[in-house]
């Protein structure tokens, strides 16, 4: 038993529900109506495109196409981090790409392989949705972690330089900032794990239940995906910082402000 397909006319009618928040915005003068309409339009177009594309990817189910799809998603995530944290593309694109690939690939392959025990690791039905979930969380954590790391380094430059003057190497001097960045990046996932199931039903579990799987089986997927997300975000943030340190500092250990866009 799979989830019931939604007729296109019914979906179109469902958009009318948006009248409530949009009406409230207009009534209260919240200046977000245009932005909301634009976002809804973008969501519709993007998902329609992805739905069509994924349909083809799922039907073909070729490992190289699935891998390519994941890499495209990682590249888009990579650009989002660079744009979100105002970093220089030429300096940060490659290290952040590598961090996102590692953070996504490792927990994903462990999920599909040892956990689900699938005969092939790159099956579209599993790697694309699960990879997408892990990557989405890695992206969010990466933006928080990298932004926190470099912003606190810039704000606390005097303390950082004092550490260098006291004989610290870069990796020793950045340790307090690295700790803070990791805490900020991982805290949302830790908080989610602590309250999951109590205040909300997580998306993965809901999707698996809608797909016809029993709730007792669905929770196993959810536990697996939470471990994958937490591991993936930790790997991504730590690697992203470790790999970008090579390009973000001058040979004298000073933060190179040319690494950031004005």
């Amino acid at each position, binding site marked *: 038993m799979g989830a019931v397909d939604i007729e296109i006319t019914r979906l179109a009618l469902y958009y009318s529900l948006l009248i409530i928040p949009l009406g409230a915005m207009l009534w209260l003068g919240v200046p977000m109506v245009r932005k909301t309409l634009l976002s809804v339009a973008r969501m519709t177009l993007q998902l329609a495109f992805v739905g069509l594309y994924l349909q083809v990817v799922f039907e073909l189910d070729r490992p190289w196409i699935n891998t390519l799809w994941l890499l495209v998603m990682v590249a888009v995530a990579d650009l989002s981090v660079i744009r979100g944290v105002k970093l220089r593309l030429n300096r940060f694109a490659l290290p952040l790409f590598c961090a996102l690939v590692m953070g996504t690939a490792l927990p994903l392959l462990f999920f599909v392989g040892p956990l689900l025990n699938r005969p092939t690791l790159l099956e579209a039905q599993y790697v694309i949705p699960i990879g997408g979930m892990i990557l989405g969380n890695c992206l969010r954590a990466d933006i928080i972690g990298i932004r926190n790391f470099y912003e606190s380094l810039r704000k606390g430059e005097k*303390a950082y330089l*004092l550490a*260098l*003057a*006291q*004989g610290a190497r870069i990796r020793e001097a950045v340790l307090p900032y690295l700790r803070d960045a990791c805490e900020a990046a991982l805290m949302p996932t830790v908080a989610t794990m602590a309250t999951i199931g109590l205040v909300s039903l997580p998306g993965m579990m809901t999707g698996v239940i809608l797909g016809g799987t029993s709730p007792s089986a669905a929770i196993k997927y959810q536990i697996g995906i939470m471990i994958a997300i937490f591991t993936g975000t930790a790997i991504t943030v730590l690697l992203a910082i470790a790999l970008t340190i090579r390009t973000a500092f001058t040979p004298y250990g*000073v933060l190179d402000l040319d690494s950031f866009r004005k």
Partner: protein
Amino acid sequence: MEAKAVSQEEDHTGSPAIEIKDLTLAFEGRVLIEGFSLLVSSGERVVLKGPSGAGKTSLLRSILGFTVPAKGYIAVRGQQIRPETIWDLRTQIGYVPQEPEPGNGTVEEWLERPFTYKANRSLRSNLERIPELFRHFLLPMELLEKEVQVLSGGEKQRMAIVSAILLNRPIMLLDEPTSALDDLSKRRLIEFLASQEDLTALVVSHDPDLRALAHRVVTLN
């Protein structure tokens, strides 16, 4: 910009601790120092003075490798400052910034932190000098438990001085080290510097008492 030695009260002919030749420093397109040369001998105490914006702090920063000269040569104990030498050279220098920014944690953690760095691990026993230095700089031992963020400006400055002394470097760079100190604390610092005959000190200061302690005063115009 031109720098000149204003007074030479004592002859110091030891080996050069800091050697600066024909230095030009620029910041955001503005030339701060041009063609500046200075030789500080081992064991010499030199006070640098000059109007604000003359580049005194930038000069200290350039000796630490934080500001890269547009032109010229800086050497510490005979070794030119370069990316491959700066890491070892910093372990020869104690630095007291004008407004020390201690980060987070307690005073005790602040003082211990430099000894967690690989370069200073062998010096860890120097921490035993904390009670003696606290007494000298009129700091109560209870301060060790205090969060660094709640310290007053004067306490921060004295802690930064204690921290630099604990590292026991042969060269000290002090940037306005008395700017937040009361008279008594200032006297204690002067007494300490005067008692360290082997210590090379390059001090940025407008304080006449510190200038009196110097072997030489150099003015950055």
